[in-house]
């Protein structure tokens, strides 16, 4: 069967025959870096296009339909426009931080790509504390947002950044709790192990009600963490005109924009890995024949299919719900999500200890 593992191994052995080990590593790192950036740009284009189409159909519109068939090149054209735009910087901004902020947000988003297994055997960095790494790195992006808000020297930006800070710090907790409950079930922080543990069924089906609750909490918390509506406090265009990126234009704004979508992809990918088995095909316990049929669908299609389903869910939220107020946002976290997720974690631990899951 077709496998990415063989391909990467062949490339590795071919390179090893050409040069010394250090150079092989350098070349491989470069290739991986280029691939990551390419994936980044491609995902950005696809997700923005997807968002616009989903929004359009929900809102009884057609959406982009002029550039290319069904407007598929619309986002490329937009990117071109943003690249060509003047990199405008207002007076009285803190120039260093103003320029640095988009890159902080962007690099954070890129770093999280490392431990994600995109398909069977396609993983940039197979780290044994993968889940821990993800939760640790994903909280750095708030620094970029705070930086942007502060450096812009704009009151709206500052308010937006402060809101975002409060929001991300709070919602990290319940997202972490939801992630932990799966870690409790598998007993491993390694993403590869977590996927492998779902070979006989995904955790959302195996883990009973606690897994469902964890999933719902996870999806709410990550919607908030990525600053998406209905939790887009940091931008809140009808309140703060644009929030932390009010003063940004051109490519710098595009980086924020891109990072937002990459973040959505990443959190959905993690969600897919934890609850829906990542690239693991749909398997049911001991139905060997059925499982074999499912194995014929390539693993990367399973991964991207699940991820895009979750992305669609988050988009669906955005185009349905009104925005929460900032104090209600924190209420929701501290009065509802956090207590529930703590109890859910206890419940999950009980399930794991007693072996009540399938």
């Amino acid at each position, binding site marked *: 069967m077709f496998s990415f593992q063989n391909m990467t191994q062949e490339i590795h052995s071919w390179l090893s025959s050409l040069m010394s080990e250090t150079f092989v590593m350098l070349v491989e790192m470069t290739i991986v870096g280029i691939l990551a950036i390419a994936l980044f740009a491609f995902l950005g284009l696809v997700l923005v296009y997807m968002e616009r189409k989903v929004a359009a159909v929900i809102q009884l519109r057609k959406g982009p339909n002029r550039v290319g068939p069904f407007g598929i090149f619309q986002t490329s054209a937009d990117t071109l426009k943003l690249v060509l735009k003047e990199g405008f910087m207002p007076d009285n901004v803190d120039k260093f931080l103003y320029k640095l902020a988009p890159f902080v947000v962007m690099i954070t988003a890129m770093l999280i790509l490392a431990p994600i297994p995109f398909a069977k055997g396609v993983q940039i960095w197979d780290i044994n504390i993968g889940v821990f790494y993800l939760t640790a790195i994903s909280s750095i992006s708030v620094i970029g947002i705070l930086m942007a808000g502060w450096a812009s020297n704009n009151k709206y930006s500052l308010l937006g950044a402060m809101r975002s800070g409060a929001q991300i710090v709070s919602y990290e907790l319940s997202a972490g709790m939801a992630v932990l409950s799966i870690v409790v079930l598998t007993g491993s922080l390694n993403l590869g192990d977590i996927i492998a543990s779902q070979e006989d069924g995904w955790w959302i089906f195996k883990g009973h009600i606690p897994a469902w609750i964890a999933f719902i909490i996870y999806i709410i918390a990550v919607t908030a963490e990525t600053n998406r509506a209905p939790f887009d406090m940091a931008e809140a265009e009808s309140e703060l005109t644009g929030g932390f990126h009010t003063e940004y234009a051109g490519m710098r704004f595009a980086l924020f924009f891109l990072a937002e979508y990459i973040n959505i992809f990443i959190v959905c990918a993690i969600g897919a890995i934890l609850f829906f088995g990542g690239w693991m095909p749909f398997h049911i316990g001991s139905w060997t024949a059925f499982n074999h049929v499912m194995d014929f669908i390539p693993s990367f299609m399973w991964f991207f299919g699940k991820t895009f389903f979750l992305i669609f869910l988050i988009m669906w939220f955005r185009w*349905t719900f009104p925005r929460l107020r900032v104090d209600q946002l924190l209420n929701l976290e501290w009065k509802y999500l956090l207590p529930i997720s703590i109890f859910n974690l206890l419940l999950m631990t009980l399930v794991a200890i007693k072996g009540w899951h399938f």
Partner: protein
Amino acid sequence: MISFLKTYFTEVFQAIKSLLSGMKLTGYYFTHPKNIITEEYPDNRATLKMADRFRGEVIMTHDEKNEHACTGCSACELACPNGTIKIINKFEINAEGKKKKAIDAFVYHLELCTMCNLCIVACPTDAIKMSPNFEHSVYDRRLLTKQLNHEGSKIREGVE
């Protein structure tokens, strides 16, 4: 304690229920793209039919003999609230050797017009009317000042 938990969970479930009902509606529209109401304007120009009373601009009707019904009474000019219409009159000698007032130019400033229809109401001979044409954009605003009577046109016989 129990009652607190009960209200707490009822609240949570009702909240989720209300959110799901909203998602049901947007989900319905997402899965039923036939509800899309977009009109692709420049593409549907061939089939686009404006309402017959639509006020797009003032025109002067001319028949096939290049004759109009405007006597130059300037009732429309007086009725106009913005000074959109300017009538320049001339005196023609007709067949019986009588001097007769006729219009030289019916100047219409489209850029000032608010399409209030007062000039059409005021016109005693129904010489002018509103046309449903709404595509007025031009590259030079001077082009918006129009002369409504055609070149070489004259007043229709019998219109006083």
